[in-house]
């Protein structure tokens, strides 16, 4: 889908991209968009994946991104009126509760991008929503004000103490869960954060859903690059594709310690003596 850029503007250390996207209908929180980068004669074949920040069905799509490596640096040089190629929405979004339960949203850095949308959905279902946002430093926080406008409470943490509580999101998470009797935790951010969030949630009796970030080549389930070990309903660990089976997984199902490896008990794992 060819999307014209409506605007691209800095927010803290990130860029906020608003795209014309007449072909995109409903987007659920946790869906991602895959953006082609590099333009004419470009040497970058693979799309870049970004959580969808917001969307107006049939009209716009928004993402928040960090100019990081070559592809996102290229994206940062684009301006209003330029046209980029986008596939969206992709992936399995967060699963929303049927009951009006008490929820916590936890996000690190640009992991907050999809969380305003999620908070609105949860509130729309009558859920209580408490938010914990963290980042290394103030400029890398995203969405604090927006989430304050939706959530029942927002706590901010930064590693360097430049905003909110000095420390990590997981330093405050247990308290938030216990204080609000939260039953579900929704998380998006770096993998080590997700691992810690999943553990704290479980330790405190809450169910967690984590949107993981694995390097993806295709984003549509055909290449098998984006896998991580996830335990299925049958108790068997499979190398699951984060692009189509995720990016949202149950926190208690991801084998966090074994990410980037193939656990020896995984389905189809090499056996001693060869395959």
């Amino acid at each position, binding site marked *: 889908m060819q999307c014209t850029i409506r605007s691209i503007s800095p927010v803290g250390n990130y860029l906020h991209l608003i795209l014309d996207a007449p072909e995109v209908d409903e987007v659920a929180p946790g869906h991602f968009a895959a953006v082609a980068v590099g333009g004419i004669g470009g040497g970058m*074949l693979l799309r870049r994946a970004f959580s969808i920040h917001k969307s107006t069905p049939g009209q716009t799509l928004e993402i928040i991104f960090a100019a990081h490596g070559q592809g996102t640096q290229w994206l940062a040089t684009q301006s209003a009126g330029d046209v980029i190629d986008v596939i969206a929405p992709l992936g399995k979004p967060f699963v929303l509760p049927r009951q009006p339960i008490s929820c916590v949203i936890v996000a690190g850095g640009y992991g907050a991008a999809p969380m305003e949308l999620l908070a609105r959905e949860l509130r729309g279902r009558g859920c209580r929503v408490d938010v914990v946002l963290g980042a290394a430093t103030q400029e890398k926080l995203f969405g604090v004000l927006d989430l304050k406008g939706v959530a029942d409470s927002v706590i901010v943490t930064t590693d360097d103490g430049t905003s909110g509580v000095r420390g990590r999101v997981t330093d405050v998470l247990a308290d938030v869960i216990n204080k609000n009797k939260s039953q579900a935790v929704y998380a998006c951010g770096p993998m080590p954060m997700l691992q810690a969030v999943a553990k704290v949630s479980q330790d405190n009796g809450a169910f967690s859903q984590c949107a993981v970030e694995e*390097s993806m080549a295709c984003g549509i389930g055909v290449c098998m690059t984006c896998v991580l070990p996830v335990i299925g309903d049958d108790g068997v660990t499979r190398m699951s594709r984060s692009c189509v089976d995720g990016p949202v997984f149950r926190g208690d199902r991801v084998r966090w310690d074994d990410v*980037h490896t193939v656990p020896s008990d995984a389905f*189809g794992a090499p056996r001693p003596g060869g*395959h």
Partner: protein
Amino acid sequence: MSVDLTTSLGSLQLAAPTLTASGCAAAGKELAQFGDVSTLGAVVTKSIMMAPRSGRATPRMAETPSGMLNSIGLQGPGIESFLENDLAWLRANNVTTIVSIAGNNVDEFGELARILAKVEGVDGLEVNISCPNVESRGQVFACNPVSAAQVIETVRSVWHSDAPVLAKLSPDVTDIVEIAHSVVDAGVDGVSMINTLLGMVIDVDQMKPMLGGRTGGLSGPAIRPVAVRAIYQVHAALPHLPILGMGGIRTGHDALEFIAAGASAVSIGTVVFGDPGAPWRIANELGQELQSRGYNSLSEVVGLAHHN
């Protein structure tokens, strides 16, 4: 008047000239949201092995200039599940299907061929000999004319089907024509070329190879000139041998290069990752490229660059 884009690979007639490359479209299902898979020349499935296989540790890919490295390690569900789920889906959707097979040793290739020869819906067999031979110090079958031929002879001996058998060749050899000759002598109906080139990217922060599997296969437009050269050489040596060409095809113009070099049809691989509609788009573009040059059919262009 539109150009006749039908073609063939040995006895297999193809309604369209673009196929998916093995490992770049899984077993077709995921592409269905981007186009009608039954209108492709064929889906070439991800190489299937006897047993389920978890593949290698991640990271499994690294983007490289105009290309990428992958070290998937043939993750797959094993032949049984493949027949039940993947092949069943392909049949139900009337998809022309070339099944790619890979074995850890010669016998496993034979076993897979024996099983596949008996089932319906297998329109062709692509024998991925570009995988390591665990019995021969991990050397890749396709890198040795003798082991390449052994695999093909074994497959051929149990292949009681009219569907063509293609050998998938590796470019990582001193003389690809020698390998082509050896698989032809062993009885293939055609060859698929090229598989990926062995490559490596180093993560200089962690000071170790970036991929979990250390080395990986280089694919994409970066390797296109190597693919065109290999196809040109093999077509020059074996002008009647059907060739399924692949390696970095991005546009109909690229596809036309492969056809002119001697391929009868082309597979679209890595480019699908960035553009899932590419197999259909490229077929259209190829039609236009041919038409604008005044050709009436694809078949008249196969190998044409050898005659000027």
